[in-house]
């Protein structure tokens, strides 16, 4: 396929879509699948056929429509209308009344002018609700692979990297390392072989951004990786995906086959000299494999134990070769940057953190789901305007970002702009984009314990501070929750947290104490109120001895 063929295909597909008066898109993302979108799809299909609307109306499954808590969702594209809580009955009414008679099904309609939609800026999620998640033609019709074509025909690798650097794109996996800089290091590395790796091991519990992108718009990730491959001089890419995401893996496999068939992956892409293949590697349930050196070990079939950096993967990665690792969302930003130019991208968000960030809103919040907002947006706006605040009768207490490596942000920091640096100032991190809202029913010490349980369980066991330290942080927290701890224990907890943070080998251990430290910082009184006085000195016989605790700990 040549670039001309690609554009021809895009036009052909656009023309095909134009023949339909209506396009009905049902959300086929995992959230809606579990809410029962298959039955909805069947009913929609049946109704369209029965009413003889097949020529007028096209039915397709699209990527995540955002409001996962209100699914199954159906979107009528021609006359933009979003329906929530769609069941078979409502599905039939949509076809009969909306498509057939032009009357909307008011009861299930969601107002698209609602701030949930109006306050979002979509780059990564731009195709959600627009295209069929399983069709490469539809992706191409929506300017898909145009950026790759542009890179291959009009730009040299340095120029591509230059654009990414000028755009100021930073890694969306959490740390915020400048993507262009990383690519440049790999490009300059002298090696017969280089690799491009996509971190799709979204291990942060409470985050599903990457899953939604992979399920709803897989080609966008493939295109971003191919462009990265071209820029750094790699001909092989790997996507490391979680085994817990079977649908995403399935869609990726389909997408890779489609792209290979059209010559958009494989040898001599778009009849240029550029070859690039992508293989999928499936993780097997280890949070630590989100750490880049552990991920690479896992791609090579080993235990996912991190290695000391330096050397960084950009110098010595897969099989000792220079390797680019970025996460799904980072790659998803690449094509739009090349298509629309770096200046466009840099104009969104803040100066230091340009672009948008996708967040998975969940927890005690009215509208749970997937949102994409410009960087620098105040936290308040995400939680109250977009998310609609906490359910009635409850009060907002904290927003947890960054998952087990992040922290809890209390209400006095609600004005905080959401970008990499600001979140760090309050002891949290951007992380991959999970945002869990907690109300006044949440006990913050218990929250800290929950995350420590997670880190303890996910520690690879290589370095001592993380392996044993997280275990003891957990037992100390448990002691506090059970009201058996003294001030000495609390002091020891703080000392141990700092030690684990400063001496652990990799990011998992270094960040593991964050949820504890941030809750101590903002909710210290919740810890203090659970402490008991040090009784053992001059204790009377009646007072509780710590033996009971020790028994439970064991």
């Amino acid at each position, binding site marked *: 396929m040549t670039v001309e063929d690609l554009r021809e295909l895009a036009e052909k597909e656009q023309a095909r879509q134009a023949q339909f008066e209506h396009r009905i898109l049902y959300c086929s993302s995992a959230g809606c699948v579990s809410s029962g979108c298959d039955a909805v799809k069947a009913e929609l299909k049946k109704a369209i056929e029965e009413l003889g609307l097949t020529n007028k109306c096209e039915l397709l499954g699209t990527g995540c429509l955002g409001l996962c808590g209100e699914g199954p969702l159906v979107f009528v594209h021609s006359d933009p209308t979003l329906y929530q809580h769609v069941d078979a009955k409502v599905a039939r009414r949509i076809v009969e009344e909306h498509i057939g008679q032009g009357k909307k099904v008011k009861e299930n309609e969601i107002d698209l002018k609602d701030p949930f939609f109006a306050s979002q800026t979509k780059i990564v999620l731009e195709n959600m609700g627009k295209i069929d998640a399983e069709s490469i033609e539809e992706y191409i019709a929506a300017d898909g692979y145009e950026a790759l074509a542009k890179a291959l025909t009009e730009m040299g690798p340095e120029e591509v990297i230059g654009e990414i650097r000028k755009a100021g794109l930073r890694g969306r996996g959490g740390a915020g390392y400048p993507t262009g800089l990383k690519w440049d290091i790999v490009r300059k590395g002298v090696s017969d072989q280089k690799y491009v790796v996509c971190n799709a091991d979204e291990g942060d519990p409470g985050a599903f951004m990457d899953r939604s992108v992979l399920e709803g718009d897989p080609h966008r990730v493939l295109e971003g990786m191919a462009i990265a491959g071209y820029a750094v001089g790699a001909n092989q890419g790997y996507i490391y995906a979680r085994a817990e995401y079977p649908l995403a893996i399935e869609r990726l496999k389909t997408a890779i086959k489609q792209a290979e068939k059209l010559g958009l992956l494989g040898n001599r892409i778009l009849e240029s000299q550029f070859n690039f293949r992508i293989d999928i590697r499936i993780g097997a349930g280890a949070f630590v494999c989100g750490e880049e050196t552990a991920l690479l070990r896992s791609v090579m079939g080993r235990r996912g134990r991190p290695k000391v950096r330096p050397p960084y993967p950009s110098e010595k990665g897969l099989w000792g070769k220079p390797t680019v690792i970025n996460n799904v969302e980072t790659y998803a930003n690449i094509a739009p940057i090349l298509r629309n130019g770096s200046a466009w991208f840099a104009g969104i968000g803040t100066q230091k953190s340009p672009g948008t960030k996708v967040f998975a809103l969940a927890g005690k919040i009215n509208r749970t789901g997937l949102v994409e907002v410009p960087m620098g947006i105040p936290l308040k706006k995400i939680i109250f305007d977009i998310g609609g605040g906490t359910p009635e009768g409850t009060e907002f207490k904290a927003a947890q970002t960054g998952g087990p490596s992040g922290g809890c942000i209390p209400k006095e920091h609600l004005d905080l702009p959401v970008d990499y640096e600001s979140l760090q100032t309050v002891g949290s991190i951007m992380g991959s984009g999970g945002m869990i809202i907690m109300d006044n029913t949440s006990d913050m010490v218990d929250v800290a314990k929950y995350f420590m349980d997670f880190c303890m369980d996910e520690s690879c066991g290589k370095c001592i501070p993380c392996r044993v330290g997280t275990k003891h942080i957990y037992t100390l927290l448990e002691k506090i929750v059970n009201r058996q701890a003294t001030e000495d224990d609390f002091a020891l907890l703080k000392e141990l947290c700092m030690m684990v943070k400063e001496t652990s080998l990799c990011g998992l251990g270094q960040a593991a104490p964050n949820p504890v430290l941030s809750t101590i910082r903002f909710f210290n009184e919740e810890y203090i109120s659970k402490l008991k006085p040090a009784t053992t000195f001059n204790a009377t016989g009646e007072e509780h001895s710590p033996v009971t605790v*020790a028994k439970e700990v064991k």
Partner: protein
Amino acid sequence: MKPRVATAWLGGCSGCHMSFLDLDERLIELADKIDLVYSPIADVKEFPENVDVTLVEGAVTNSENEELAHIIRKNSRLVVAFGDCATTGNVTAMRNPFKLEDVEKRAYIELADKNPRIPDEYVTIAQLLNIAHPLHEIIKVDVWLHGCPPTADQIWFTVNELLQGKIPVLPPVYLRYG
């Protein structure tokens, strides 16, 4: 008035007390300096009040140990964990990885020569705790004197420092486990 010193024997083999006796001729010097108010080697029934220093041998492994530990703490200005069992649990704690019922079964049933039974209904036999604890997990400890047993020199050094009103920091040569 001379300082009032006590020694106590919890869940241990009494080796630390044997080592204490290894002070040999220094015992005479010590006797001039202190009043030994309670010890397994002295016939005193009740743990006295107002003790200056108590050396506690052994881990806290049963209900009697636990009770005595609290009494000691209540009545002592300084408590010394005397030997490895009091400091780490040591050999006494080797039962800890096993379930209490398995430990009792092993000791009282499988290894019994006659009348195999777990003596749980006798009030005179202390109930084993779930695990044997180092002393500091039960009461506040001020000084740790290691060794299995601590040597007479270690004991001499520690006691003398305490008698001079200092909290001893064991020099590396005296810091030893095992």
